[in-house]
C-alpha cells in the first residue's frame, strides 16, 4: 500500500469522522432531537418510535399488485406486462413525508433508509417466490423506472435508480438503466387515475444498447428474470408501461427467450 493510497483512504474516511463530531450525530433522522437518547433501534438512522411506526405490508390481498386490501385496478386491467408487484410499506402520511423529503426536498440522507426498506421488500419477494438466498442470481437485472431529463436536471438524481442501485449492490445483481422516458410529463401525483392511464401510453421506450447488454449478461440461456424498481405504486400504470416497453424490446431482440418481469416498489398507496 503506497503512501498515496493510505492518504486517500484517510480522506475518504474523514467525512465519517466529522459526521461523528456533528451536533446531532445520533439524533433520529426523522424526528430529530425529539427521541429519547440511547433508543436507537434497527435501521441505524431511526429511533425506536419511528421504526415502530413503519407501516409494513405483511400480508397482501391482491396477489398481482401486492395491495394489502381489495384492489379494483388489477381486476380492470386486461393483461399486465409484469408478473406481480410487491411493495415494502403502505403509503401513509409518514412514508409520504419521507419520500417527499427525499424526492422533492432533496434530503439525500433519507436514501440509506429508503434503500433498506426496499431491501426488505426484496427479501419478502424472494421468500414468496421461493428463491432461496443460496440461489445464484435470483434476478438477472435491476431496472429502475426512469425520470425525464428535465426532472433529472432539476432534482439532480433519479430516486428509482438510486434505490435500485443500493439494492443491486447489496444483492449482487447488475443494475441496468434500460429504459428511457420519451417525453416530459406532469408529475404523476398531480393526476387522476384516468389521466395517468392515458398519459403513460408509450411514455417509455427501451434503450436497445442497454437491452443487448442485459441479454448478454444473463446467467441462464433460455430464461431471464427482471426486476423493475420504482418508489410508489399507485395505479400501476407507470410500472406496467415500463414493463410493456421492456417486453417489446426483449421480444424483438431475442424472440425465443422466456422472461418474467417483476416489480418492486417502496410504497403501495
Amino acid at each position, binding site marked *: 500500500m503506497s503512501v498515496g493510497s493510505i492518504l486517500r483512504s484517510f480522506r475518504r474516511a474523514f467525512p465519517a469522522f466529522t459526521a461523528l463530531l456533528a451536533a446531532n450525530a445520533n439524533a433520529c433522522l426523522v424526528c430529530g432531537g425529539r427521541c429519547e437518547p440511547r433508543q436507537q433501534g434497527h435501521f441505524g438512522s431511526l429511533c425506536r418510535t419511528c421504526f415502530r411506526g413503519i407501516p409494513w405490508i405483511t400480508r397482501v390481498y391482491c396477489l398481482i399488485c401486492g395491495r394489502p386490501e381489495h384492489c379494483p385496478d388489477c381486476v380492470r386491467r386486461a393483461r399486465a406486462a409484469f408478473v406481480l408487484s410487491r411493495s415494502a410499506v403502505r403509503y401513509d402520511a409518514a412514508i409520504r413525508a419521507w419520500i417527499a423529503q427525499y424526492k422533492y426536498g432533496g434530503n439525500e440522507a433519507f436514501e440509506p433508509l429508503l434503500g433498506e426498506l426496499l431491501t426488505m421488500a426484496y427479501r419478502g419477494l424472494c421468500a414468496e417466490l421461493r428463491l432461496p438466498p443460496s440461489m445464484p442470481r435470483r434476478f438477472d437485472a435491476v431496472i429502475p423506472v426512469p425520470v425525464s431529463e428535465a426532472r433529472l436536471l432539476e432534482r*439532480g*438524481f433519479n430516486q428509482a435508480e438510486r434505490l435500485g442501485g443500493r439494492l443491486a449492490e447489496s444483492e449482487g445483481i447488475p443494475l441496468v438503466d434500460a429504459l428511457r422516458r420519451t417525453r416530459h410529463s406532469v408529475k404523476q401525483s398531480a393526476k387522476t387515475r384516468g389521466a395517468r392511464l392515458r398519459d403513460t401510453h408509450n411514455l417509455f421506450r427501451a434503450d436497445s444498447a442497454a437491452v443487448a447488454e442485459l441479454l448478454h449478461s444473463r446467467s441462464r440461456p433460455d430464461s431471464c428474470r427482471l426486476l423493475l424498481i420504482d418508489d410508489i405504486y399507485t395505479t400501476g400504470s407507470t410500472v406496467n408501461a415500463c414493463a410493456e416497453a421492456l417486453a417489446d424490446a426483449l421480444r424483438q431482440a431475442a424472440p425465443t427467450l422466456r422472461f418474467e418481469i417483476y416489480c418492486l416498489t417502496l410504497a403501495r398507496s
Partner: protein
Amino acid sequence: MKVVVYAVAAGKRSWAGWSLAPEIDTAYWLDPGYRAEAELAFREKGNDAPSRVHDRQPAAGAGEAGEAERLVAWTEPLPLGHALAVAERWPGGRLPGRRLDQTLSRLIADAWAGDARLGLPVPRQPAAHAAHVPRAAEPGAGRADAHALAARACRAAALLQGRALLVSEALALLEAAGAAGPAGAVPATWSAWAPALQLAALLGRLRLGGAVAPQPQPRLLRWRQALGARPRPRLRCQRCGSGTARMRRTPCAACGRACAYCEACLTMGRSRECGLLILGSPGSPDAGGSSPAVSPRSEPIMPAARAMPRQAAAPDLAVWNLSPAQTAAASAALAYINAPGDPRQPRRRFLLWAVTGAGKTEMIFPLIASALARGGRALIATPRRDVVLELDPRIRKAFPGAAVVTLYGGSEQRWEQGEITLATTHQLFRFREGFDLVIVDEIDAFPYHGDPMLHFAAENARTPDGTHVLLSATPPAALRAEARLGRLAHVRVPVRFHRHPLPVPALLSMPPVRKLLRQRGLPRGLTSALGRSIDRGAQLFVFVQQIRDVEPLAAKLRRFFPAIVIAGTSSQDPDRTDKVQQFRARAIRLLVTTTILERGVTVPKSDVFILDADGRLFDEASLIQMAGRAGRSKDDPAGNVYFCAPERTRAQTSAIAQIRSMNRIARRHGYLIENERR
C-alpha cells in the same frame, strides 16, 4: 448546472469568467458597440429602479481595461463548482497568445484533479479544449437585441434587488411579477431568463455565484497559493453560512460530478455547489474598480433619496403617543440610527432591551418611519409565525400609506416587494443587503436563539450601511455582557407602557408535577393560591414543563375547581389557536400549557402559575417571559406570579432579581406612576 468557462485577455490584464449564456458574454466582451448599447439602455432604465449601483464595470473585474484582444472558451460546459474555482484561481496579469489557452486548460485540469485527490469519482471527460472565439463578422449586428435584452435585464435586476434566491425561486419571482413585460410573450423559463440575468451580472447589477462555494482564501494565506500550493476548498453555504460540517456530497446528475449540498438550510430549498445563487445586490465597491464616492454626483442612476444625508429625517416622536420611557428609548435608537456610521464598527447593531409588556412594537414605529422617510426599506423579523401574523394588522394600521409585505412559510406575498417587510426569521435567507433597517424581535426565542444560520441571514439582510436593531425582554447573557462592557449600543426600557411596576414572582414550595399527579390531593398552598386568583376573577396561566403532563394536570384541576372551564394546550394540539382565543374571551378560565405560550400572548387580567419552576427547560429568560404574562393591562396592572417548585434554583432567583432591578431602575428614572403620586 453546467456553465461555459472562458478567459479573456485585454492589454495588461486577463480574467476568467463563466456564463449561463455564453453568446451574451462573447458579444459583451468582443463587440464594444454591443456593450455600449447595453450600458446605455441600462442607464436609461436605471432611473426607475432604486439601487446603489455605482455604474461601474462588472464584478468580473474587467473595468475599462480596454478592448478585449482575445477570448477563448472551453468547448464543454463545466460543473458550476469547477467554473467558480477556475475564476477564483485565475492569476490575472498579462497572458498573451496561447498562454491564455494553456492557463485555462491547466486550471480546469487542476479542478478535476482536486476532485480525484478528495477521493471523489471523476467521470470520464469528453475531449475538450480551449477554443478561440472569433469576433462577430459584422460588429454591431446585435444592437437592437442588446437594447431589448438590457431592458429585460434591468427589469429582472430591479425585481431581484435585495434578494438572495436559488434559480427556482428567482423564476417563481419573475413569473409572479409578470416580468415578461406587457406582452407577456416570455414565459418564466430558465432558457428565456438566463441571458437577461447574465447581462445584468455583466453590467454589475446582480451577482451570480454558487449557492455552496469555496470560502475565499484568507488574505494572510494567499502567499501559499502564489507559491503554487494547492487550494484547499473549504465549502460554505452562501445562503445560510454553514460550513463543511453541514455539507453532504452526492453524485449529481445536473453537473455530472459529486457535488456538495447544504443540509442545514434544506427546508428552504436545496442549496448546492452546482446550483446558482442570485444575489440582487451590486458587487462590492472594490470589485468594480473605484469607490462610488468618486463617481460624479450627476449620475442619473443614483436616486436622490439615497444621496440624502442621514439627518434629513427630523424625528417627531409626539405623533406616536408614547410613554416617557418609550419616547426616551425610541429617541436613543433614532440617534444611533441617524448618526453617521463609524468605519471601525462595521456591524451597526443596537439592542433595545425592553421589559415584557413595555410596548416594543410602538417603539419601533418611529424607527420604521425614519427609515421610510429616507427612502429606505425596513424589515421586521421574528422567529415565530404567530407573532408575524399578530404584528401584521398593527403595522398596516400604523403605516396606512406604505406597502407592507408579510412573509412566512406558505405566504401569498412571497415574491412581492414592499417598503415594510414583516417576516419570520427563516425568510431572511431569501434576502441579501435588501434593507436599511432590520429589526429582529424576540432575539432570544427559539429557533433564532442559538441558530448561527439565522444570525447569518439576519446579519446579511441589511445593507452595508443599514442598522440592525435587536429587540428583547430577556437578551441572552452574551449580549448583556457586550452591552455592559460598552461594545454594544443599547437602551433599556425598564417599565411597562402603563407605568406600573412588573409583578414580582412569589416562591411557592411544592412537590414536582409528576409526583402531584400520582397523589390524590393537591398541596394546600397551591389550591388556595389558585382559589384566590379565581375568586378575584383573573384568567389563570398554568405552565408545566412537559407536554405529557398537560392533560393529566388539567383533568386533576377540573376535579378541584369544577365551577370554571379548564383546558390544556401544547404545541401538539391542533386546536391551540382556538383555545387561546377562548381563553382571551374568558370562555376558558384556566389554561394549562407549556412554553409555547411563554411569549407573544397578551390576556388582560391574568395570573401566572409556573409549576416545576426548577426544571431544566425553564431558564431565567423563560421564567421572566412567563412571569411577564401577568399584569399586562392598564386595568389590572398588578397580577400575581408564582414560581412553584420543590427547590429554589439559580434561574428562579436571578429571574426575580432581574425583575426587581428593572423595577428599581424605573423608579429611579421616575417612570412609575406611583412616583408622581408622591
